[in-house]
């Protein structure tokens, strides 16, 4: 494991992760006990969740959405540690925006770690017996004496989109 797995939750709140600045390695999100690794190349921005605004009229839907108040209105949502929709974001104070199939989407988390090199995670395929249906998880890897599940922007975006049909022309 690289020595560069630096907690970044206390850093500048917005814009410090640029698509071109990070060309390798992983960004690991903490969602309660779950660790979810995304390729850094898929990450567009990490921002404070408190900077996001709720999408009006969303209260009755299963998946609550948020959007950026400035710039393009990228949508974000929060899931629980089983990657299922949850009503409240709880202590998730960060939002990781990533490139998906059809634009940029965000997922809230409590903490993130940067891993500098792709080799910092040795990704293994998910055993077939653990697969039940559509899933964004494409692999598993050791991370901090435990495990991180591995996804990528396209699959995670497709999964988030599958949880919600579009509202008012928005993509999530």
């Amino acid at each position, binding site marked *: 494991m690289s020595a560069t797995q630096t907690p970044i939750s206390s850093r500048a709140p917005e814009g410090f992760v640029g698509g071109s600045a990070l060309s390798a390695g992983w960004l690991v999100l903490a969602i309660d*006990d*779950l660790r979810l690794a995304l390729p850094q190349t898929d990450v567009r921005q990490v921002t404070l969740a408190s900077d996001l605004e709720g999408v009006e009229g969303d209260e009755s839907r299963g998946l609550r959405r948020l959007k950026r108040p400035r710039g393009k209105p990228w949508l974000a949502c929060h899931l629980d*540690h*089983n*990657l*299922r929709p949850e009503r409240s974001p709880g202590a998730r104070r960060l939002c990781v925006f990533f490139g998906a199939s059809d634009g940029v989407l965000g997922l809230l988390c409590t903490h993130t770690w940067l891993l500098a090199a792709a080799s910092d995670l040795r990704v*293994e395929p*998910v*055993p*077939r*017996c*653990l*697969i*039940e*249906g559509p*899933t964004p*998880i494409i692999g*598993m*890897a*050791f991370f901090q*004496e*435990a*495990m991180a*599940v591995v996804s990528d922007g396209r699959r995670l975006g497709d999964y988030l989109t599958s949880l919600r049909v579009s509202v008012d022309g928005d993509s999530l």
Partner: protein
Amino acid sequence: MATPSKAWLLRLAQDCLVAVSPGYMVEYLPSARMIPVPLTPRHAPGVLVWRSRLIPVLDLGILLTDSPPVATPQRRAMVLAYQALPGAVVHHGALFVQAPPTEIDVTDGMACALPDKPAIWEQLSHACFLYEKQRVPVINLLWVFMRSYASLPHSVPEAVVHDPLPAALGMENPAPGII
């Protein structure tokens, strides 16, 4: 009289015993900590860290007896080895068990039909024998660990041919190269 084969009994639930050939038994873990994996089947909740590897762990008692999931973080588990073909890569997986495994002798005369229910026994077992008035399926670890449970319940695949007891207990096929 035929020489008895050895088999290990694994108790998966209160009323659910299965047998495994000795060659596939690797390590009994009296206190295994499971790491949950999201979006998995109810009976396949996650992985174990075992010898610096991540291996799947199944709670077949849930699948076979419809018992509720056990919330205890530390549980007994049996690490098993399996491979697709002789000489192929050996994979490992684990089953949650309710008690330490026990070794018994099995003879051809003990062979019996698989339990009628649940139907999935036919897809997880390749033989069965009667032990102390209880039907004990011999589970095929390849079918248990290398299948997807995406669309349960399944019909029995046409290719499934159940083995006679000696073959099911590994007497006719060498065990995988267990570490």
